[in-house]
């Protein structure tokens, strides 16, 4: 099969089994969104897929080959990973950071990404002087600029204002349309509804469900997932119904 196949993967934290026997597929030209409350192992899952942590429990296959069969460097060439990281201030500028991620990329597509994220204006600024939102956009941009078949995003819209959140979602869609396999952890169900083809639900007690977005983003499922009543909104999507809880 042509894509990322997760077959029986497990995530354990100490004694607790967070994810047990996860099975799902992410095909090229699709966006798969991973949803779940805090602490259920979403970031850990993504890091396993990125090769930053050893895969536990089962197997992950890319284009039919198990991840174990790939050399570390080869897999790093196939995957772009964006996550929240801290690094010491050595005076890197935005331009240098992007260069490190993706080499010197010019061309319409690269410019398009940088424009969409409003990063083009920040190129000469040192990373240490950026706000958290600006930093986030640079990180997302860095991941998207890398010409890899797989794109893994860990809460790409965190710290961003609404306009940039929308831009980020648009870019995710465009990246998928260009043929990439896009897997993203999102916190916001409405955003998931806007961009996902497939959805993975992680309940945190070992259970998981995966399937088409329309099926997964049902009120009962999401209410069970988040432990909160949900209500549908116009135009599709689900919102937590705080009024029924207060």
């Amino acid at each position: 099969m042509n894509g990322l196949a997760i077959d029986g993967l497990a995530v354990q934290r100490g004694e607790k089994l967070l994810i047990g026997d996860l099975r799902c597929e992410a095909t090229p030209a699709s966006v798969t969104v991973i949803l779940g409350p805090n602490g259920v192992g979403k970031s850990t899952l993504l890091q396993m897929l990125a090769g930053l942590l050893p895969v536990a429990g089962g197997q992950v296959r890319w284009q039919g080959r198990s991840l174990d069969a790939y050399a570390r460097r080869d897999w790093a060439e196939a995957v772009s990973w964006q996550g929240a990281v801290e690094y010491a201030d050595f005076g890197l500028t935005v331009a240098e950071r992007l260069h490190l991620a993706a080499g010197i990329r010019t061309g319409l597509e690269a410019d398009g990404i940088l424009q969409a994220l409003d990063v083009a204006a920040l190129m000469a600024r040192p990373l240490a002087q950026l706000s958290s939102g600006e930093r986030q956009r640079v990180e997302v941009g860095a991941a998207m600029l890398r010409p890899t078949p797989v794109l893994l995003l860990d809460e790409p819209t965190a710290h961003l204002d609404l306009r940039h959140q929308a831009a980020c979602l648009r870019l995710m869609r465009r990246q998928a349309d260009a043929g990439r396999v896009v897997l993203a952890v999102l916190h916001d169900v409405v955003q998931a509804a806007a961009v996902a083809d497939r959805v993975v639900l992680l309940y945190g007690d070992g259970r998981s469900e995966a399937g088409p977005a329309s099926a997964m983003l049902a009120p009962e499922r999401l209410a069970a997932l988040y432990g909160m009543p949900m209500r549908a909104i116009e135009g599709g999507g689900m919102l937590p119904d705080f009024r029924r809880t207060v």
Partner: protein
Amino acid sequence: MYMRLARPAFALTGLLVLTLVLLAVAASSGADWINPWHPGDATSAAIYWQLRLPRVLTAFAVGGLLAVAGAWFQVMLQNPLAEPYILGVAGSAASGAVAAAAVFPASAWAMPAGAFAGASLGIAVVGLFASLGPARLLLAGVVLAAFWAAVLALLLTLLPARALGRAFGWMLGDIASSPLSPTLLLAALAVSVLAGLWLSVSLDRLLLGEIQARALGVPVRRLHLGLLLGASAMTAVAVTAAGTIGFVGLVVPHLVRMLIGPMHRWLIPGAALAGGALLVVADTAARTVVAPAELPVGVLTALLGVPVFLFLLVHRR
């Protein structure tokens, strides 16, 4: 924090030219000015070619080695305050030198040989903790440095007074008595710079932090070990040659980053040149300011280095 003052290639070329000029001026400087092409008499020629030039080249190589080692330690430990002695190699080298001076008080080679042995032991001990990762390795190194300082203090109490003066003199830095030839030291510097250039892409990625570097395919653990051993070896060579000279390894990488940025393909050669130049200036001052007496060069690097470092600190935005 850093304002780029120039395009890297121009800045590096400028630095190279400046350094060459500095080397020439320093070699000619002294109690009297000697022009190597018209020395005046055989003694002046001998002084220039056999005393001053080797000394200037030694200072350049030692300064370069310390600066490059400092840059490697800073990126490896993810800490801009790291410097070559931070993991205790200077303390173990000094302990080795003092122990050797106590056991072989009449030998002039005892201290450098002891320094090398001590440095190697210090590196081996730190290497045991290499797998801890940057933050904890740093902590382990600081604690080890304190340990070696205690060992050194213990050894110093056992030394007779005359040898004590020599021990302190060695620890404060002495370029003139280097047991290693300038050729050897320059070769070591060249190897270090080439290795740094070869690793420059990986080092740059390491600037993004360990996780990001791994995500980009850098074999971080192997790289850490290589950097640790390589930088420690550079430090050991520098300390064996000239004693424990401070501040060059800490301040010079920052100065160069200010000038041409943190990308290692510019930073490594820049640090080698700037570190070498700084130590040549310090050593020349050490032997001319109170002539015919000499100051220990380590004193001057501290006196020059501290104001520069504080200036940088204050201007950090």
